[in-house]
């Protein structure tokens, strides 16, 4: 079986004259937590929906867990999905609904699985609650619980923490971390870049339907090629820093922030950082802190 959980090649999706996704290609490896990033209207949810078989691409090819998601029923047992804005059906209590879905998905012992998944999201007390009586947070967690049922090898989560209070959002992030520990492939679409930076191994940044950049989180945030030093006091001598082995450029961003770029291919980051910090200390510069790379947010803002 392929090591790719998802392969998307030159996928385009049009809605009438509007091109929502334009020739996007990306791959998600098995066991990875992968982020889909971008501003509103970037094509995240459309891409996500094509992965789940909800939408058909206008052109291009998709393979999800080795199958074509356009084929009716092909994803059964292979993926768990938390769709954005999908309302839980009425006329059901949470427990029986999840049990029914589990049975439909071919889960062994669906009732027990439903209880386990509700416990994972901290919602076992909602077993006998009618779906229409759930609060937004409870409905979201119920939807997350159904995505986990049957322990699918691939879990797709569209805006899993949107609209949740910080405590419940943290609980959801914890569930994603647990999935990562279990080597489940997870695709997360979110606006919360700090959250994605913490959770994801890799990500794709989309902008106006096109792929702006895709890669590992280290590549996206430039962790292997740059770092910043927060200077408290002292004079930074830029030419001396640029003369150090591995350093390709150094410059001050404002009065107190030193930005250093280095050759991450030929030099280990820890060696270059130690060398620069050592030099600064020797020249009487006092340091408040060092941070590798840049925030994902900065990178996204730069690209979109």
């Amino acid at each position, binding site marked *: 079986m392929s090591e790719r959980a998802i392969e998307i090649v030159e996928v385009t999706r049009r809605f009438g004259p509007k091109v929502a996704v334009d020739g996007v290609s990306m791959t998600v490896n098995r066991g990875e937590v992968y982020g889909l990033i971008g501003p509103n209207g970037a094509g995240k949810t459309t891409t996500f929906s094509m992965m789940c*078989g*909800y*939408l058909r691409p206008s052109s291009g090819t998709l393979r999800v867990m080795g199958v074509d998601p356009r084929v009716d*029923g092909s994803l059964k047992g292979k993926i768990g*999905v938390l769709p954005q804005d*999908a*309302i839980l059906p009425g006329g059901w209590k949470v427990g029986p609904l999840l049990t029914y*879905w589990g*049975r439909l998905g071919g889960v062994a012992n669906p009732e027990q699985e439903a209880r386990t998944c509700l416990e994972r999201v901290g919602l076992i007390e909602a077993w006998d609650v009618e779906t229409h009586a759930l609060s937004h947070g409870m409905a979201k967690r119920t939807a997350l619980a159904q995505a986990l049922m049957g322990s699918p090898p691939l879990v797709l989560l569209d805006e899993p923490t949107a609209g949740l209070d910080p405590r419940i959002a943290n609980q959801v992030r914890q569930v994603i971390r647990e999935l990562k520990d279990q080597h489940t492939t997870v695709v997360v679409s979110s606006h919360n870049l700090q959250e994605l930076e913490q959770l994801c191994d890799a990500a794709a940044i989309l902008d106006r339907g096109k792929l702006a950049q895709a890669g590992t989180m280290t590549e996206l945030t430039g962790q292997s090629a740059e770092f910043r030093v927060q200077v408290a006091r002292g004079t930074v001598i830029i030419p001396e820093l640029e003369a150090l082995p591995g350093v390709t450029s150094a410059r001050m961003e404002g009065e107190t922030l030193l930005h250093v770029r280095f050759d991450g291919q030929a030099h280990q980051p820890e060696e270059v950082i130690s060398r620069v910090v050592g030099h600064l200390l020797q020249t009487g510069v006092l340091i408040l802190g060092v941070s590798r790379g840049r925030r994902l947010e900065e990178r996204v803002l730069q690209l979109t």
Partner: protein
Amino acid sequence: MVWSAECRRTLRSGRVLALLALYSLFSLLVLLVVGGITRALREQLDMQIAQAGADASAASQVTEEFRKGFLGFLVGGDQAVMEALAHVPLVVVVVFKATLFFLPLYVAIMGFDQVSGEVGPRSIRYLTVRARRLSLLLGRFLSQATVLLGLVLIIDAGIFVYAWLTTPEFTLGSFAFNLLKFWLAAVVFSLSYLALTTLCSSLFRAPALSLIVNIFVLFGFWLVNLIGGFAAKDSPVAYVRYLSPSHYANGLLHPGLAEFAVSGMAYVVFTLLFLGGAIVILRERDL
């Protein structure tokens, strides 16, 4: 699995009771109106015959002629069907025909949101990663059909019980045979309209739009049937009535196997056509 879950869900909801109440009230209304008119006409006939000084056999003959004339109007003058329905109280035939006329509308009200009600709020997205769209659609259709069969049986049984109690010559054997016959006819008839409702429901995201289009199509079918019926027999326009499912309704009560089979087959074709269309649309559409 979808069928059993949807049946349980429907039966749990108050909707099925509301539909039963609606159907019962409508049938009761027709029953009372038809019963009242029939009684009044019979009394008037008896009075006119008595004034004319005719004997009892002549009165009975006039009543029978009136019955035949009215029955002929209801079944399109088909002698074989009239003979087959000779032992069925007139009130049953009238109520049956009236409910058959409105049954498509009732079916539309019952099932207009079976698919669009899930596509609009995107609830269907939870299902399509677990089951084939084909299974979901057939499960919904069959659950609606099951509920409909039950409701139609209850109403038909009610009409027949009323007729049995008020018509001394209506025997138990005739009661049982004709109840089964009328129920099967209603079932075959309504399944094609249920398939049409499924098709309309698969076309749109908004349930209200599905209902409006469904009703629009029903009016279209009624209109086509009427235009075809009123047109001269040798006119090409007369053939348009074959495009309306309702055109084949009388054949379902026909005693001849060939006529019954043709009508039954027509309804099967309509059902498959509508259901096939719904399957193709749901399989290809965005969710």
